[in-house]
């Protein structure tokens, strides 16, 4: 990949090993555990079953933790110098800002919806209708 990047140019830092097998296995176990934790929201024990937002927030927290672990240990950022902040924080901020600014116009697009559009748009009522049809339709007798 590199034409010139001979090992002697200003590197030398990453020669010594950090981590080690034990650490990686621990991170691996944590990742697996966290993944199963995401499913916790599906279980009977999850108290907020009727408030999906709580579950979503929980799952995003889990994902962020997992991402953190991957970045810090697998990508060795834990051991890096301060440049890591210069690179990651602006990108993260910009990404967040972009999404936030999309919310009023696209996230809340149905505030200004025209009838022409609403007419063709699926609504929760359609789902209810389908479910009702599933229990009451003529085929319900058929099978």
């Amino acid at each position, binding site marked *: 990949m590199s034409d010139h990047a001979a090992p002697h140019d200003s590197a030398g830092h990453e020669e010594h090993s950090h981590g080690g097998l034990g650490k990686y296995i621990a991170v691996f176990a944590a990742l697996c555990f966290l993944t199963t934790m995401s499913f916790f929201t599906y279980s009977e024990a999850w108290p907020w079953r009727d408030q999906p937002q709580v579950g979503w927030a929980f799952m995003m927290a889990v994902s962020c933790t997992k991402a953190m672990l991957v970045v810090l240990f697998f990508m060795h950022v834990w051991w890096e110098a301060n440049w890591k902040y210069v690179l990651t924080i602006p990108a993260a901020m910009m990404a967040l800002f972009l999404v936030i600014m999309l919310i009023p116009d696209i996230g809340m697009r149905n505030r200004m919806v*025209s*009838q*022409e559009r609403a007419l063709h748009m699926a609504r929760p009522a359609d789902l209810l209708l389908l479910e009702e049809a599933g229990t009451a339709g003529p085929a319900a007798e058929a099978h």
Partner: protein
Amino acid sequence: MKRAAGIFWALLFLAVPVLGVATFAVAPSIDVWLPEDVSEHGREIDSLFYFILALTGVVFIATEVLLFWFIWKYDAAARGEEKATYIHGSHTLEVVWTIIPAATLLFLAIYQMNAWANVKMRRPDMPPTVEVIARQFEWRLRYPGRDGELGTPDDLHLVNDLHLPVDEDVLVQLKSMDVLHSFFLPNLRIKQDAVPGMKIPVWFKGTETGSHDIVCAELCGWGHYKMKGRITFVTRPEFNAWLERKYAEQEATQPVEDVTGTLVTN
């Protein structure tokens, strides 16, 4: 000889502010200027325009004349053996010319908010006077029928010929059927894109009777240039009479339901 070249170039740069100001000074007298304003809120926008014109005009003249002056004065040919000034900057000056524009711009930002809110945010609490539906390449208009309600089968359908009562708040409900268009009323200082899928309220108040252009200001295809309509302000009694006439015409001809009609009345 060398000095003459410097003078020539300096004067060329002086021509920028001189001719620039001249252009703006002459433009109104040859009628290449803001079109007549017949709206209530337009005054506010125009005065803001003049305010910014004055502000930027001062900055423009000041900076361009300074540039000319420096070019004139610091021409190597004019300075003889003298060396250029060895200076790396001035902290005070940096602060001054950051703070002053910052204060000016912040003032401008706050000062204009009211005008913006009047045109785009403080929607009058009233039912739509008319619905304008843009499509390639015409303005479809829908007035409430005799029942006074939009979206009923007796709605009045017209194309490109928008009549509105003068001296009254009007609320236009703006929609598009196909692609983006923009509802531009130069004489009312109104512009709003029509976005398919959205209904966007536009409100204004005409202050003079008369008829003006409706321009489409968002590229909408090959016929964009000819997507022209007319807006006509008439007095209330005249408006009512006009509406009545149009109802009668519509009833007489029984127009075939067009696509817009079927969709909207659903």
